[in-house]
């Protein structure tokens, strides 16, 4: 029977109250939202916080709002809300692609985007999505609010730049014209972590060239999750199968996967190559079909 070590529990009534509770109880307190990463770790006694600050009642952190050139998503937005949101899929189909593969429907009813990002698991899908979409994160602390780019959120596996007295409150994705995105993942079965996964976001120029691109890989040991040489090879070029193949080849070279029960190193490099090609092809295809349907 897996039971967490004893702890004290407090339910926050507002964001300020949550910050006050964190300040009061110090470094051995942890915020709990969906609980589907923290509770399993507590049950295995990998984590033993002295206080849990429950933020599930903070409905002000559940929003999914289009605001000018940004889509603003509250840290407490559940996976199921992101999966089912028409405004999200309209701007960022990569999010629905990824959400369909995250855990299972029951876990998605509880788990939150903020929790996923703050868990900082190297095999976590939404982290790659946020790298690819060049997300900005809003973090609140006792001295107010600060905004950090996604590349500064994770300091390493399971470690973030959110300080013990701070809370991640909002994820912001920039909305760009003539752009689309895609994510694809190979998993052994429903609910498994990725054997490997890839995401891409592209912006096409007036002549159909790839004006801007971001390519990210999940669970293959890529530093910062972003395939920079693949991006450089693609940027400014006309989309073509040869171009996707070159981006895939570079991604397979640049990643650093470890062989484990999910697959050998060679298999994971093969996936990095193939999945990079697929997400570029899909993302470019989506921009073109959007342009067609608007024309």
């Amino acid at each position, binding site marked *: 029977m897996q039971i967490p070590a*004893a702890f004290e*529990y407090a339910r926050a009534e507002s964001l300020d109250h949550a910050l006050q509770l964190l300040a009061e109880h110090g470094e051995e307190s942890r915020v709990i939202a969906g609980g*589907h990463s923290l509770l399993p770790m507590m*049950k295995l006694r990998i984590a033993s916080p002295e206080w849990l600050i429950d933020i599930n009642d903070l409905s002000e952190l559940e929003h999914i709002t289009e605001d000018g050139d940004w889509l603003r998503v509250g840290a407490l937005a559940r996976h199921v809300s992101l999966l089912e949101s028409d405004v999200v899929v309209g701007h960022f189909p990569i999010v629905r692609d990824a959400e369909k593969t995250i855990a*299972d*429907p029951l876990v998605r*009813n*509880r788990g939150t985007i903020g929790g996923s990002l703050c868990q900082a698991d190297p095999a976590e899908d939404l982290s790659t999505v946020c790298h690819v979409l060049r997300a900005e994160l809003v973090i609140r602390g006792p001295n107010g609010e600060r905004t950090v780019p996604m590349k500064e959120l994770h300091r390493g596996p399971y470690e973030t730049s959110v300080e013990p007295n701070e809370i991640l409150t909002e994820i912001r994705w920039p909305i760009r014209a003539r752009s689309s995105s895609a994510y694809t993942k190979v998993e052994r079965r*429903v609910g498994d972590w990725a054997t490997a996964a890839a995401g891409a976001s592209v912006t096409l120029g007036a002549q159909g060239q790839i004006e801007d691109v971001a390519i990210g890989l999940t669970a293959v040991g890529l530093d910062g999750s972003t395939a920079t040489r693949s991006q450089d090879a693609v940027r400014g070029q006309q989309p073509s199968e040869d171009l996707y193949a070159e981006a895939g080849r570079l991604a397979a070279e640049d990643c650093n996967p470890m062989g484990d029960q999910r697959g050998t190193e060679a298999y994971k490099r093969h996936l990095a190559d193939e999945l990079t090609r697929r997400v570029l092809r899909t993302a470019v295809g989506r921009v073109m079909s959007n342009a067609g349907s608007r024309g």
Partner: protein
Amino acid sequence: MQITMTVNGDSVSREVEARVLLVHFLRDVLGLTGTHWGCDTSNCGLCTVLMDGQPVKSCTVLAVMASGHDIRTVEGLASGGTLDPVQQGFMEEHGLQCGFCTPGMMLTARALLDKNPDPSEEVIREAISGQICRCTGYATIVRSIQWAAAHPAGSSQAETPAADPASTDTAEVSV
């Protein structure tokens, strides 16, 4: 600490330790052992209950987190002496063998049909994809849920055979 929640329509208040999981609260404190306890790791879905109408894995929710919420377990599916159409469907279509996954499967089915009364087979399979059955191979579970979708008022509703895609030798099923 003191917690209060609604369980199958009744308000219950108990004093519990913060670390008690909802599954153990339901089984050991309230004696509602219809909620089964399986893998303990939020993989198998045996412990599924409805929290505010949504299926959740009760091994990964603290009882204190459920305080103030509405919980429905398999004991709350039947109404008076009348089985829920989902329960009826599991009888009619042989949706269980050992019965271990059945309470969770039925609650997920109830939540699905409340949201989408006429789901496709693909939607049904997706809805139960977080729950494991080691007996039936899922085919009869899917048919059971389809039976419930086709009989929203349960067995009391008169159905013509033509309107009932799931009707084969149901008259021979004995329970």
